[in-house]
């Protein structure tokens, strides 16, 4: 009987071996995937087990941590708090015990909880010395004054809207505001109150959709602000070589292949106007014809250089702006004045202004300046990065000159700042079926200091359903907000 017994022994050995192999596969090979699975409750428990690190603006934290209420079964020890939550929500995102985390709170979760591998040494040290694990900090590029000006401006306006301000020379995001907004503190915990607050913010129950990050995630028809891109395309493709060259622009101008005339707003001097004058008065006929003459491909190429048609990562993902690639001439004409299919995020239009202000060099926008360990040692630093060169320096100078005329004596006079050179472009974008809804008011601009440096470029969009339709214009609603944001940045430089 011993021969079968030995075989059974081998069989039992194989059973145990199979279990050992399976265990290695589960606890070694697949361990990290299972451990970091966002549905694994342990991830949430770890996220709130120790006070989270802070998100910092200009040296001051805009976040905090508080001990959660001990009542009930809550296994999460700390909860997130926010200072001036609604103002900063588009920057921070939220970290909620019940509803997960988004944006910076989610992307930099490892640093904020202290679990990141780059903090390994520190974590090990804390473990040995028996200290509670601490989270590191995320230092942002934002400018508190600019953010305040942006948010207060939108709030005063009362409609929906967004502001993005960039530092043209580096791509640093200085302001990122969206209105209406929400307070991430209101649902940071795990109680019934938190759940009720969360429910009230959902689009289903709140048509204003306060949790939408309009600065990065919403695209609007850019309207006349897109004429800056069209002008850049004209210069870069050598169609016109100076701002004061007369363009071949008949008035009225019928779009190619159609019997429709492209209209201007009011009676403005657009016939064969120079590009400077056309931008100053915002002539649809001139820029529509330029786009149509250049054709879809050349316009698309220039738009892409400015960042259209690709998602931007700041590191928070921003929706891709749109310039279509399959349009006929009349559609290209409409798109070239920021209508038809063209759609841009506020970030995208701030990038356009920033590239012009930075002498044609577009820097990659970013909002995390550095990551710090809990004892404030630097862990990582973001270096400015060039994204593309939509304009030659010479052409950028020409375009700057034109945009400054807009603010000097054109549609953008509301953006003037004493002692600072400001260039800008207004936009009033039609939308809705048959343009039935109130238009969006746009303004993009940059400021230049006497020493020639340009500390800020900004894009503002306001969608105001409540306003009288005829009162809506980029110069009227959006330019004052842009001016205040620019002023705040310029003042903080002094």
């Amino acid at each position, binding site marked *: 009987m011993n021969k079968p017994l030995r*075989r059974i022994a081998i069989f039992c050995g194989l*059973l145990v071996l199979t279990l050992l192999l*399976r265990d290695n596969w589960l606890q070694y090979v697949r361990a990290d995937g299972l451990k970091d699975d966002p*549905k694994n*409750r*342990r991830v949430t428990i770890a996220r709130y087990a120790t006070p989270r690190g802070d998100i910092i603006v200009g040296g001051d934290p805009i976040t905090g941590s508080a001990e959660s209420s001990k009542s009930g079964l809550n296994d999460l020890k700390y909860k997130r708090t926010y200072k001036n939550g609604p103002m900063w929500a588009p920057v921070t995102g939220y970290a909620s015990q019940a509803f997960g985390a988004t944006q910076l709170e989610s992307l930099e979760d490892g640093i904020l909880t202290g679990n990141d591998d780059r903090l390994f040494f520190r974590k090990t040290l804390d473990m040995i010395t028996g200290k509670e694990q601490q989270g590191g900090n995320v230092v942002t590029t934002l400018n508190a004054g600019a953010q305040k000006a942006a948010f207060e401006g939108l709030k005063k306006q009362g409609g929906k809207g967004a502001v993005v301000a960039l530092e043209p020379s580096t791509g640093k995001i200085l302001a990122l505001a969206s209105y209406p907004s929400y307070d991430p503190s209101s649902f940071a915990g795990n109680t019934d109150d938190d759940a009720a607050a969360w429910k009230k913010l959902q689009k289903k129950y709140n048509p204003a959709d306060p949790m939408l990050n309009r600065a990065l995630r919403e695209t609007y028809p850019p309207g006349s602000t897109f004429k800056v891109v069209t002008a850049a395309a004209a210069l870069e493709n050598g169609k016109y070589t100076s701002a004061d060259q007369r363009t071949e622009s008949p008035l009225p101008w019928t779009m190619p292949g159609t019997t429709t005339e492209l209209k201007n707003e009011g009676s403005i001097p657009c016939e064969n106007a120079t590009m400077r004058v056309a931008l100053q008065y915002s002539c649809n006929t001139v820029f529509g014809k330029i786009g149509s003459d250049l054709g879809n491909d050349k316009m698309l190429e220039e738009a892409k250089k400015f960042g259209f048609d690709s998602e931007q990562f700041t590191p928070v993902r921003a929706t891709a702006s749109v310039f279509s690639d399959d349009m006929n001439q009349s559609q290209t004409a409409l798109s070239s004045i920021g209508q038809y299919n063209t759609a841009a995020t506020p970030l995208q239009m701030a990038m356009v202004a920033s590239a012009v202000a930075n002498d044609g060099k577009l820097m990659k926008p970013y909002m995390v300046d550095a990551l710090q360990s809990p004892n404030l040692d630097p862990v990582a630093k973001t270096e400015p990065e060039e994204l593309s060169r939509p304009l030659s320096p010479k052409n950028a100078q020409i375009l700057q000159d034109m945009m400054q005329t807009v603010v000097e004596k054109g549609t953008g006079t509301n953006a003037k700042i004493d002692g600072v050179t400001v260039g800008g472009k207004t936009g009033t974008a039609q939308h809705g079926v048959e343009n039935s809804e109130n238009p969006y008011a746009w303004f993009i601009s940059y400021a230049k200091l006497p020493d020639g440096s340009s500390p800020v470029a900004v894009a503002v969009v306001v969608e105001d359903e409540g306003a009288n339709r005829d009162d809506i214009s980029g110069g009227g609603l959006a330019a004052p907000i842009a001016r205040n944001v620019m002023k705040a940045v310029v003042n903080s430089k002094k």
Partner: protein
Amino acid sequence: MSSSTNTPTHHTSTIGAIGAPSRRNTELALLVFAVAIPVFAYANVGLAISDQVPSGLLSYGLGLGLLAGVAHLVVRKFAPYADPLLLPLATLLNGLGLVVIWRLDQSKLLQSLRGFSPAAPRQLLYTALAIAVFAVVLIFLKDHRVLQRYTYISMFCALVLLILPLVPGLGANIYGAKIWIRIPGLGSLQPGEFAKIVLAVFFAGYLMVKRDALALASRRFMGLYLPRGRDLGPILVVWAISILILVFETDLGTSLLFFGMFVIMLYVATERTSWIVFGLLMSAAGAVGVASFEPHIQTRVRAWLDPMREYELSRQITHDGILHSDQLQQSLWAFGSGGTLGTGWGQGHSDLIKFAANSDFVLATFGEELGLAGVMAILLIYGLIVERGVRTALAARDPFGKLLAIGLSGAFALQIFVVAGGVMGLIPLTGMTMPFLASGGSSVLANWALIAILIRISDTARRPAPAPATNPDAEMTQVVRPS
């Protein structure tokens, strides 16, 4: 025999009743570790959970030490030549199991569940009872061959045990399986655990008598040897009845276990490989057959194939009338989160598995808190128990002892595989528990009884042959040259 007499100065050695080493002191030394390790683990859990050495440490350590000491003394007195590893290994597992159960008792999440009562005190009580059963078996079962006499009584007992949970008023349906009986004052018992041992006795007794008939008096049919109906009939009937009962009780794990045990013993008794083929075919047919009409088992297969989907469904209110369980996914997460070295005692979150955390899924807690290293150690300890069992079967001198030992150790190995494989997502879950580790009275009692029987068989197997009758001429005549 004894090497001490075989030194170069003695050119002759004498065949005599010189005792084989009994190894009782080895057992005692190992037992010290088997008690000390759980005591340290217990202190560790207390320090991790509440930053202080748990107040019960002394009584826990003394209790476990006392139980182990009693067991050791009983073995020393009544089974002096027994295998020295079985008792320490079982003690270590039982001790660690108690620590983990106590650790899960501290979980706020588990405490909030309906019907919670601390499981550790109950488990400690059952452990004490189980050691008593262990002692009783060793004291009163002087020779395992006595069990042969009860072959048919065993058959009857096994069937009664299996049928008990189906008796109205006595049986209890807990989480979809009708395998428990309620005994007032004692709580729930799982008679299937005891049936495992009793059935092994019946199979061993029957097969020992019929093995030649089964092996030789058979007809060749399609390359397989088929025995005569009158030889195979009774055993097939008993097996079929027990499977049927288990199907009604929706306990696939135990059915599988019995079937595997049956095939292993049949193969060892007849030495015919065709039985393995035959067994595999039958079990495949049985499994497919049962799974096709039993929703309880279908659910488990679905959960095994896609634990994440089951997890998602368990979070929602579904209207398909099927109970969805997130347990397997939770268990996988527990194993994965433990990683290589684990989170440390008391610092995991395996209570997320909810009510089965200390019974069916107890291994997941080890996986999370002791990591890959800990689980491998546990599996190797189980493997070692099985190895000692198989070794006992090899060493046993009588076919009944061989069959019984291999039946019990084979069943033990299968149970480990089915349970550990189930909670690790290797095979569908079957609802059995890890011997010694899991919370549950019947399991502890039955498995200690199983160890007692193995110890008894090993004692008989390793006992030196009785001394030959003293012959005054022996020293003069029976001289053996050293080889």
